[in-house]
């Protein structure tokens, strides 16, 4: 397994990371910062460099995805501490599986595959504990209607975007958090992370047809839950 290191500046002054204590959740030491990689270096090139023994390459890969992957995880899991744990475990898995990565493929979908799997594993584990309401619905029992949602009508009921900003934000948060996890997951991957349907199929290990049907169900669920949560929505 390759060593990896952090360094404090692009001047490549290394601060060797030794086997010191691992930070527990919420602890913030001040480890040397990782210099971001040059934007013209691809993920696959960084992973290849890591496999070839470049000690900075892996740290730069982690840095590159620090924001995007954490945002996905915190929105999917609804918990910052859990998101950080899964983020770390995902990159640990990437590190341990780097030699098996097919360099003909893209790194980003692979990373999200690992992270989504680990997030789901955690949710399943938490679901077995009675005190972890990760998938609590805002409207229990309202998901069995099978009714058609008309997006033109739903859009006509949206409030003026300039109004009630904080309330609207909280409402959207509650609606998204109340969606079944598999519908929330695919909506996040598609809308926020811009994965094409084909890539989503690879990440979730599902056929293209299932990607489509699940994403359609996700949008319908989102629109329905939003309407349910906003029965007095006014025309814009």
């Amino acid at each position, binding site marked *: *397994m390759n060593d990896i290191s952090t360094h404090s500046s692009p001047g490549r002054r290394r601060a060797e990371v*030794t*086997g*010191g204590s*691992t*930070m527990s959740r919420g602890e913030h030491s001040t*480890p*040397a910062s*990782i210099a971001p990689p040059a934007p013209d270096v691809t993920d696959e090139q960084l992973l290849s460099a890591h496999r070839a023994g470049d000690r900075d390459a*892996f*740290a730069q890969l982690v840095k590159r995805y*620090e*924001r995007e992957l*954490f945002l996905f995880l915190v*929105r999917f899991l609804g918990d*910052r501490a859990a*998101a950080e744990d899964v*983020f*770390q475990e995902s*990159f*640990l898995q990437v*590190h341990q*599986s780097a030699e098996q990565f097919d360099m003909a493929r893209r790194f980003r979908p*692979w990373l999200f595959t*690992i992270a989504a*799997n680990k997030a*789901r594993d955690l949710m399943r584990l938490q679901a077995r504990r009675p005190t972890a309401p990760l998938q609590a619905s805002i409207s229990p029992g309202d*998901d069995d*209607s*099978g*009714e*058609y*949602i*008309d*997006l*033109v009508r739903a*859009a*006509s009921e*949206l409030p003026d975007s300039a109004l009630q900003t904080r309330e*609207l*934000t909280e*409402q*959207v948060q509650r609606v998204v958090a109340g969606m079944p996890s*598999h519908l929330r997951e695919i909506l996040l991957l*598609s*809308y*926020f992370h*811009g994965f*094409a*349907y084909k890539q989503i199929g690879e990440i979730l*290990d599902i056929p293209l047809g*299932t990607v*489509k049907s*699940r994403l*359609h*169900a996700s*949008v*319908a*669920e*989102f629109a329905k839950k939003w309407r349910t949560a906003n029965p007095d929505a006014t025309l814009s």
Partner: protein
Amino acid sequence: MPKLSNADQSAIDGILMNGQATSVPSAAPADASGRIESAARVLRLLDRLPEAEVPVGLAERTVQRIQKAAYTGDTLPTQPIVTPEPLA
């Protein structure tokens, strides 16, 4: 589970299928454009989700944790990278 009409499904696909959500594809027929714009308005509600602040030093702590695992020989539980599971 609520459903979308075929027209709304096509509108969603027009926006999201190729990644990087756009508003209204310029090639969309006029009658479809209105539906796509409505679908896009619904999706844009998601932009209201706040951007969570990334914990300070997350990348650095991650590297530390991996380095420690390398030193101590810790490994993850044996599991496939892609976990097959029924989700639907």
